């Protein structure tokens, strides 16, 4: 038990995992279909877009930044892809353009933050407006359908596993590797710890920051294509506002908003948690008016659980230490 508590204080994402399990247990009592395999799969598919983006956002937040413009990048990327498909019908061109454009827009955020030494919040607030304007400018607020076979990205299956889940898994594995096994990963975590120390240690702050934001852009590009494929076509304003859900997923997963500590696993769990709330509400056929209230309530419960578990873990660490102290005193 005490070991569990110690673990809790170290691995901050465990709290989110526990909250998710508790919520899942509750839902399975309330709704008989909750615990079916197909619902499980469906929840994961629904979470995939947020989760993929949350992985990218984790890098950005870890490095001490934030990206409010992610939703706008998603919108612009989708618009660009749909428009290019409409105009040229060339998949390679559209894919390459969309993904590289998303990466570039992300990198641009990072570059602006670094070059102009501006707060990430205001920078990405500004680019949010710019990217969104660019997207509407591009399409004139029209809906653009995408070809049917695009649907493969949204609901195709490989080895009977839905493609979005596969994509999520791939990005998840790469994400974890990048963060824990590469030089870049350590630099990201270091940067979020202390900008001053990073300067004094001569870390390549500019490169690391720009890369972190570029990763955020890149995964947003992938998420955009998945979402586009699932929704079936471009809609004006698609993705706008999703950044708050993504940030919430990351923070719920135990990443500090100020940077420096956090995990990819946590962010993915956070995304699943958020989807579970809606899944439960849909399954229970709840009145549409109370959705937000329940969402808010559950979110609140999750932070309280998180806080309580941190508190308990701290307490147990304390009692362990004082016990050790008393032992040496007697010796």
């Amino acid at each position, binding site marked *: 038990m005490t070991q569990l508590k110690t673990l809790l204080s170290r691995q901050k994402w465990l709290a989110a995992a526990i909250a998710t399990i508790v919520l899942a247990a509750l839902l399975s009592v309330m709704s008989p279909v909750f615990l079916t395999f197909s619902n499980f799969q469906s929840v994961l598919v629904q979470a995939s877009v947020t989760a993929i983006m949350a992985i990218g956002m984790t890098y950005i937040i870890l490095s001490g930044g934030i990206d*409010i413009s992610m939703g706008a990048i998603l919108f612009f990327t989708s618009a660009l892809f749909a428009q290019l498909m409409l105009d040229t019908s060339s998949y390679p061109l559209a894919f390459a353009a969309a993904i590289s454009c998303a990466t570039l827009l992300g990198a641009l955020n990072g570059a*602006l933050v670094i070059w*102009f*030494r*501006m*707060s990430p*919040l*205001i*920078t990405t*607030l*500004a*680019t*949010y*407006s*710019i*990217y*969104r*304007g*660019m*997207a*509407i*400018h591009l399409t004139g*607020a029209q809906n653009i359908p995408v070809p049917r076979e695009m649907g493969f990205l949204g609901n195709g299956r490989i080895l009977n596993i839905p493609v979005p889940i596969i994509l999520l898994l791939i990005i998840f594995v790469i994400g974890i590797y990048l963060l824990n096994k590469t030089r870049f990963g350590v630099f990201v975590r270091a940067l979020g710890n202390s900008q001053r120390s990073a300067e004094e240690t001569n870390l390549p702050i500019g490169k690391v920051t720009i890369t972190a934001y570029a990763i955020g852009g890149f995964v947003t590009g992938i998420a955009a294509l998945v979402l586009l494929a699932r929704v079936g076509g471009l809609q004006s304003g698609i993705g706008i506002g999703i950044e*708050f859900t993504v*940030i*919430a997923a990351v*923070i*719920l997963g135990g990443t500090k*908003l100020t940077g420096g500590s956090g995990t990819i696993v946590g962010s993915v769990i956070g995304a699943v948690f958020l989807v579970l709330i809606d899944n439960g509400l849909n399954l229970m056929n709840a009145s549409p*008016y*109370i*959705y*937000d*209230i*329940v*969402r*808010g*309530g559950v*979110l*609140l419960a*999750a*932070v*309280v659980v998180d*806080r309580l578990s941190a508190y308990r873990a701290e307490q147990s660490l304390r009692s362990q230490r004082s016990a050790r102290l008393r032992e040496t005193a007697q010796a």
Partner: protein
Amino acid sequence: MFRSLTSAARLYPAIPVIVVLLVSFSTISPYFLNAGNVEAMLAANSVVLIAAVGMTLVFLTGGIDLSISTVISASAVLSGLVMAATDNVALGVLTAMGVGAGFGAANGVLIGIFGLTPFITTMATQLIARGIAFVMSQGVAVRGTPFWVMDFGFWVWLGIPAVTWIAFGVVLIGIAALTLTTWGREVYLVGSNRNSARFTGINVPQIEFSVYFLSGLLGGLAGFISIANLGNAIPGVGDTLLLIIIGAVVLGGTAMEGGEGSVLRTLLGVALLSILINGLNLIGIPFYDQLIVQGVLIFVGTWLAMKLSRRRS
């Protein structure tokens, strides 16, 4: 004279940007300084200004209040319902402020006293407030606002609408409270370094509680003002305001990290943003290109502001 002008520009870097915008817009569009246009601009931004003062307080302690936008909606709806039922304006004001204060207090207790993270906590209360606004109104505008309230929205004194005077009043009180009282000083100190504040014997939970409480209270007031502006209470009134409020505060030069900024700066930030949006509308460029120009100007404005204030120290 020139020196004091330049030093003001350094302290309040938004000022030169505002001056440039004012001059260029009024040259390009003859309607820009038209009384009707100015009045409309002032009235429409009073809600944002009041809420932004609340957000400034929270930012100064290093927190964030995402719920302020939908607290505006919830208090507007509930106040609208009460006024429709009783036809009593005073009761309506009380309800609006009460609802705002209630949400503020909830945020304050959760964040200040229990130490929850502001971002997620206020995101949760944001959803709850939004839900309440929609449940209570069943999604549609609450009608039956007493005539007096709507009429109040029309009052203009010295060329400035009454609702804007109220917002200015809030700004003045905010400035006074922050610069003249011990409480204000402690708000800055807590934001500058929570640990140091605790070690200095400042009651950190109390200060944090107070800023979220006030932010909620101001959200409530803003909700009521929105009824006066619009004539009716609608459940979605605050939804679109969050980014504008945050943008205005940050644009004014109050940092989200805490300890730095002021209400006066926020006033300038709101002024800058609203002049920008209004002017772009008048010039007649399409909506989406306005978004792009807005973004660029927000960035350039903040950057210039930062340049100027950096040179000061």
